[in-house]
């Protein structure tokens, strides 16, 4: 599978946007870890912006960052949202409410609890009516989402936005699912070369060992969230040298991603 890459978005500790992250990942700025500050999605209407859950906010932050660098209007993009667990804050609140008498589940919580809530808000916010999928593959969700996005691009010939995101759950779930930080990563992929295309990505299953991040701090970040499993790929993209990374796709297999840079037109 081979697709064109137009733009990248990120919101992760110490990597607040793709512009900032690029400097850090190519080594021209030091990495300073700090949590992602609260974000008000600019594409949501004001009343929805206030009510948006942290899950919707992080997905929008990465998606908006990627869309900003893209030549394609957000409304025209198909989407793949990839998240291991989506909103465990809500699962916690509902699970707790179900142990109480009476059992009062918040209707807003319930409709925001669906795994595809972020995808739903996104399509409403930008008016996107194209195909949209929301997937989970546990810690392997980024690679699984990338593969799913690539098939949408290649087989359906759709310009596609991939958004991967996860958040730490509250206790007591955190002890069972210790996602260390809030993070989102997004890519805009196209079937044909556009004026903004700067690299081609080719994906294939691989048994090679997983690529790690280049520094201990970034490696810690890579391991801390299913979305930041993308970091070795983003490092390659930031440096601008063609090459290959292997991202985790299961406990014992990977997805090899070949990155080939082209001159911007």
């Amino acid at each position, binding site marked *: *599978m081979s697709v064109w890459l137009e733009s990248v978005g990120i919101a992760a500790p110490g990597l607040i946007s793709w512009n900032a992250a690029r400097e850090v990942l190519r080594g021209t700025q030091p990495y300073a870890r700090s949590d992602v500050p609260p974000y008000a999605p600019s594409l949501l209407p004001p009343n929805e912006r206030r009510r948006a859950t942290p899950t919707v906010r992080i997905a929008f932050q990465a998606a908006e960052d990627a869309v900003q660098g893209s030549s394609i209007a957000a409304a025209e993009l198909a989407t793949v949202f990839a998240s*291991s667990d*989506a909103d465990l804050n809500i699962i916690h609140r509902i699970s*707790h409410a*179900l*142990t109480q008498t009476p059992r009062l589940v918040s209707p807003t919580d319930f409709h925001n609890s669906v795994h595809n809530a972020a995808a739903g808000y996104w399509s409403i916010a930008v008016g996107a009516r194209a195909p949209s999928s929301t997937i989970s593959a546990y810690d392997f969700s980024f690679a699984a989402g990338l593969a799913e996005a690539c098939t*949408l691009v290649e087989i359906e010939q759709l310009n596609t936005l991939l958004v991967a995101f996860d958040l730490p759950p509250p206790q*007591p*779930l955190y002890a069972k*699912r210790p996602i260390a930080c809030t993070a989102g990563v997004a890519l805009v992929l196209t079937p044909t070369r556009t004026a903004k295309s700067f690299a081609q990505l080719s994906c294939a299953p691989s048994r090679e060992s997983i690529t790690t991040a280049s520094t201990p701090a970034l490696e810690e970040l890579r391991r801390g969230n299913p979305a930041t499993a993308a970091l070795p790929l983003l490092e390659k993209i930031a440096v601008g040298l063609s090459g290959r990374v292997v991202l985790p796709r299961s406990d014992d297999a990977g997805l090899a991603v070949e990155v080939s840079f082209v001159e911007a037109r």
Partner: protein
Amino acid sequence: MTPLPISAYTVTSALGAGRDAHWNALRSGQSGLRKSQFDTNTLDCWLGEVAGFNTPLPPALAQWECRNNRLALFALQQDAFMNAVAQLKARYAADRIGVFIGTSTSGVQHTELAYRERDPATQALPDWFQHRYSQNIFSIADFVGHVLGFTGPTLAISTACSSSAKVFASARRAIAAGTCDAAIVGGVDSLCLTTLYGFNSLQLVSADICRPADAARGGISIGEAAGFAIVDPNAKGSMQLLGYGETSDAYHMSSPDPEGQGAVASMRAALKSAQLAPEQVDYINLHGTGTMANDSSEGRAISTLFGNDKPCSSTKGWTGHTLGAAGIVEAAIAMLCIEHGFLPRSLNTRTKDPAIEAGVLMEDRHAPVRVVMSNSFGFGGSNCTLLLGSAA
């Protein structure tokens, strides 16, 4: 698209385990919905509960323990599906078979049980609770891949009530892109208090039995189900996936667009991918949840595209709304309709809503059925339409 052969399929729902149980219930008009007691549910509602499966997993699978995985394992034993899996294994390498499973809540019922056993002092969850193998959305896909021994691309699709319709589209793309040679597709959702009390909080659960398209319909009856199919481009199955459509409403998180534009676009996309005209569709299995909003919106969409004479019905009066499993359940029912030349009536519908002008079947019909359209629409405005047909 080139039609994609479906070489085997199985379904388990409140109608029973396997295809024969479903066919018998369909032709005899026997609903699987009961006013049964599930867990500690106190809501006054009808449920589509599956009988006979809720026993512990075998010791080798113990870490996967949860109601959803139990239901999946039970459903995989029906209709000699495991024999078809063995044939698939003989034909392809294990890492060339993809696994695409739809679910809305995976094993969250296990989390509900764990929350009842929190440590009073520390609030810690019990040791037996393993998030990865139960509650996590991927658990069901991982479990099915593990049980069947397939290691190709494995994915859970979770787009609420369209989840297990969309698995057909993802699997077809993966096969076309060469990332796998064939695939297991399916959907599993099991009863839990999260969905019961959640839908109830949105005032969408009916105290009465689910009555799709009825003038006095009061909402959904929640059911549980599991279904699986094998899509294999090199097989000579009698059934085929002819096309699919996927669209987004871009309207509201939990209400469909009243004009049904997203639904129309989804059905149009399916027809286009199958290169079929509306008149070539013999029967439409509606999403037909029995809520005021869904049935009105979908009825309008059907009338827009097919006029008011196209035979259509919802089969949720039989199975209840099986949420993330609805897509695969209704794909299986569509294939039974084709096999048996049968168009089921809208069960439990007494007086058709005069505002729904579409050709909702009030009586069963026996007639040749070559092409069935099946609609699945979910929260977040996620629409998917499948076209299934007999191989020429």
